[in-house]
């Protein structure tokens, strides 16, 4: 069926070919062992490349501040002080509250961006209407302006309507920053869906919306989850707007970390920043470990192949 997109090369097998397949089976098996090794080694290289700097971050996070610049590759002068400092409200650090804020903001941003992004993507992928190009252009255009130049007008707008330091003043900009990517990825994936299934569902009496929700959306799970992760992390990383518009009570982790200070003026609080960086990264890793199956389940497992 048409889930195999145009241009794919499905070649009918001739008799001769079938015989040669049997012959090559042994070779194939040997080849697949080699392939498995290659995969394992590649995976190892990837993991090392991704985690090596992170490892250094953790090592530094556990290092006594007096030995900040130690270059021993293994843990030395191990201490938990940096983590205590990062969470110490007595020193004016608000990492605990900030983690909750970031989580709350991230969840709101992801949920809203996905919801309205799905609406827009459905329309762009499935409906035939005028001005589609303009809409796509406008949405893309929203990620073309240097972010820093947006701050001053936004600051004035939000302070004028009394939104300074509120959650919505942090959430709305974050949504806007992730929306273009959300709409584009979802559109490109929705176009890949086997839409005849939707039409079949409608013949069965579903409304267009029901058909979309019950048939298409489950199939698009990997794409939706991928987009959700991208949106969440992007909101988790947002700093520019938050640094100007958040208050002590609403500041996200990025702002909280930036406000860390050494015990002395001019002293860079590296070890504390690295400790905070570690703390901030771990929830995301757990999140990904929980949801990682979703990133890849979908189509291949969903029985829509062929």
């Amino acid at each position, binding site marked *: 069926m048409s889930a195999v997109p145009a241009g794919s090369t499905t070649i009918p097998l001739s008799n001769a070919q079938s015989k040669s397949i049997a012959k090559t089976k042994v070779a194939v098996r040997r080849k697949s062992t080699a392939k498995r090794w290659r995969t394992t080694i590649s995976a190892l290289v990837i993991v090392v490349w991704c985690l090596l700097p992170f490892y250094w971050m953790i090592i530094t996070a556990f290092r006594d501040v007096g030995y900040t*610049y130690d270059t021993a590759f293994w843990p030395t002068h191990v201490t938990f002080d940096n983590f205590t400092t990062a969470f110490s409200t007595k020193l*004016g650090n608000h990492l605990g509250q900030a983690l909750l804020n970031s989580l709350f903001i991230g969840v709101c941003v992801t949920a809203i961006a996905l919801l309205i992004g799905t609406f827009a993507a459905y329309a762009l992928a499935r409906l035939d209407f005028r001005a589609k*190009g303009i809409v796509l252009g406008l949405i893309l*255009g929203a990620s073309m302006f240097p972010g820093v130049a947006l701050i001053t007008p936004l*600051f004035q707008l939000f302070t*004028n309507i009394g939104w300074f330091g509120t959650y919505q003043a942090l959430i709305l900009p974050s949504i806007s920053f992730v929306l273009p990517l959300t709409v584009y990825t979802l559109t490109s994936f929705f176009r890949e869906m086997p839409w005849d299934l939707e039409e079949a569902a409608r013949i069965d009496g579903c409304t267009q919306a029901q058909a979309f929700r019950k048939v298409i959306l489950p199939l698009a799970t990997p794409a939706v989850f991928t987009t959700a992760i991208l949106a969440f992390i992007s909101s988790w990383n947002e700093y520019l707007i938050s640094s*100007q518009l958040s208050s002590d009570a609403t500041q996200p982790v990025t702002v909280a970390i*930036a406000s860390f200070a050494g015990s002395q*003026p001019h*002293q860079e609080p590296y070890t504390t920043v690295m400790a905070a960086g570690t703390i901030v990264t771990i929830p995301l890793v757990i999140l990904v470990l929980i949801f990682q199956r979703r990133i890849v389940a979908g189509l291949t497992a969903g029985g829509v192949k062929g």
Partner: protein
Amino acid sequence: MRAQRVSLVIASIAAAGLVLTGCSSSGSGGTGSDNALTSRGPITYVQGKDNSNVVRPTIDRWNKLHPKEKVTFKEQSDQADQQHDDLVQNFQAKNKNYDVVDVDVVWTAEFAAKGWLQPLTGKMAIDTSGLLKPTVASATYNGKLYAAPQTSDGGMLYYRSDLVKTPPTTWDEMMSDCSIAKKAGIDCYAGQYAKYEGLTVNVAEAINSAGGTIVGSDGKTPTLDTPEAAKGLQNLVDAYKNGNIPKAAITYQEEQGRMSFEAGKLLFLRNWPYVYSLAKTDGSSKVKTTFGIAPLPGATGIGASSLGGHNAAISVYSAHKATAHDFVEFLESAETQKFFATQGSLAPVVASLYTDAALDAKLPYLPVLLKSISSAVPRPVTPFYPAVSTAVQDNAYAAIKGDKSVAKALSDMQAAISAASSGN
């Protein structure tokens, strides 16, 4: 067709804009009406990260004394740029809740010229007679005092007392002492030469110490076309070229230099007072008992340090300026200053504290720091400071690395500063 589409896009953006622009024009242009000067009530004090937790206790003490005029503390980030931008945004929005703000010495002129700071004249005047002169100069713009010096900072020369018996008093002496470093197999001298604000500080010191100046007394006319200025920059360039300043120093900010000094790899280090206690206590420090401090070396005697530190200013948009004024004086008082010094190692602006025996015992670097600050020169007090600093950094960096002659670097700097003050 395409043109139509484009015009449609523009039209729809413009429409969205027009609808919203209405919201952004803000209310009163109130520039400090007179009754605000006598008005009292709760205020907010805005400052960057309170590193050593001295501001909160100070405010608590004030609040106990003035229960009807409580001060709230708004703490900004630890990064200077962020503090600057936050202040600018709030001043632009005419935020009434930023009553007393802590401004870096180099921003004072800019904020004053923008009309955001209440001049400390008439009812607002404060007594500056007991303060260190250079700190008052850093808070003065166009002949008017716009802020009250609050904390100071000056560069000092850290040296290895086990290798150098008497610290050098002139630049040339220091350069000849570099043979000691060579013998010991370590680097000789480093300051901060990475491309950031610290480079401006170091270049200004080199030029001022050699008798030159960056801008004239009007704060905007560049004065780099003098032999003294050339001599100052040349000193840095030569030292970097002949290895007296190690190649790595071009990547140094404060911390990298400190690290090298604490690791015993550097004979002389130009840095702020904060290094003192860390070099004594850091577990990794190899120079705990083998370093000393001295004023920066100059052409013939003590050099001219650049001045660091912060000033406390009153926002023109403050609704309770009388309270704000009293709070500024409170920050200025010898008692508060002493607390800042003992608890937070912040250099006081009150001259008498430097000879306070009890304080000297706790902060042994104070006598040296006093010499440094007394002969310090504020970085250019100009409302165009960011552009001036960029002009200095860009050209000095290229000169030190040897990509540009000193003469060319200075003439470019001169032209760039003059362009900056013409509003580019």
